[in-house]
């Protein structure tokens, strides 16, 4: 599984670098839930810009990564969904609430800074 996970201050940044199998996606969810607790991270950023397909299964796993992180005390922001991937995701009519998505890393950090300070992002 080609995913790099960095810690930056109160945040964890997971960058998915290549297409994931279903079992790798589930392993990533478990790994992130564990890391959020161990590092006491307040925010989790998942960079999906390298993914050229997000099908209904992966969309659900991303959502459950966010829900799991929330229970472990961190807000999640998904970064970099490609435009054509976004178009495909719309076809599934999946309820992706409470996924929070932004276009780039800077925006993700700004959003987390604000929401962690104000306790506002109860989405992720």
């Amino acid at each position: 599984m080609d995913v790099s996970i960095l810690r930056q201050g109160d945040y964890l940044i997971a960058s998915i670098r290549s297409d994931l199998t279903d079992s790798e996606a589930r392993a990533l969810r478990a790994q992130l839930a564990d890391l959020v607790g161990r590092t006491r991270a307040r925010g989790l950023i998942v960079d999906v810009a390298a993914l050229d397909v997000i099908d209904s299964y992966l969309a659900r796993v991303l959502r459950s990564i966010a829900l799991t992180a929330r229970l472990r005390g961190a807000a999640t922001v998904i970064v970099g969904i490609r435009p054509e991937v976004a178009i495909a995701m719309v076809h599934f009519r999946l309820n992706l609430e409470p996924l929070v998505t932004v276009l780039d890393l800077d925006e993700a950090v700004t959003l987390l800074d604000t929401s962690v300070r104000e306790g506002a992002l109860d989405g992720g």
Partner: protein
Amino acid sequence: MADEVRVEIRNDADLVPARAQGRALAQRQGFSATDATLVATAISEIARNIVMHAGRGEIVLRTVDEDGRCGVVVTATDKGPGIRNLDAALQHGQGSGGGLGLGLPGARRLMDEFEVVSDARAGTTVTMRKWRVRDELERLRRRRVRDG
């Protein structure tokens, strides 16, 4: 020249090459990046259906050129137990454990044409097609000119 690619599906790792091959074939057919992504995503959904419900099967990807238009045909076959309630599966997915049954209706919405033949003895075959958008527009235009 028709292009044909076969991908054997035995476990979830086989979805990765199936998606990549589907995208590559659609791009060779001149599909836009968006439509190639829709094709790759639909392939992923029906390949997962094979893994979950039949265990193993095969996906055949083919190009078609007919009637002034170019397209991609995806055929997924398995010898699994068949789909008991096809209408329900197409409406809401198979809805088996964990609510993972979005495969069929999701794939259907991503493609232009979609057919399922399923039988408890013979297994399931899903055939789906997508056409290159600019050919469809050209066909519409010609029809409009012809019909005045």
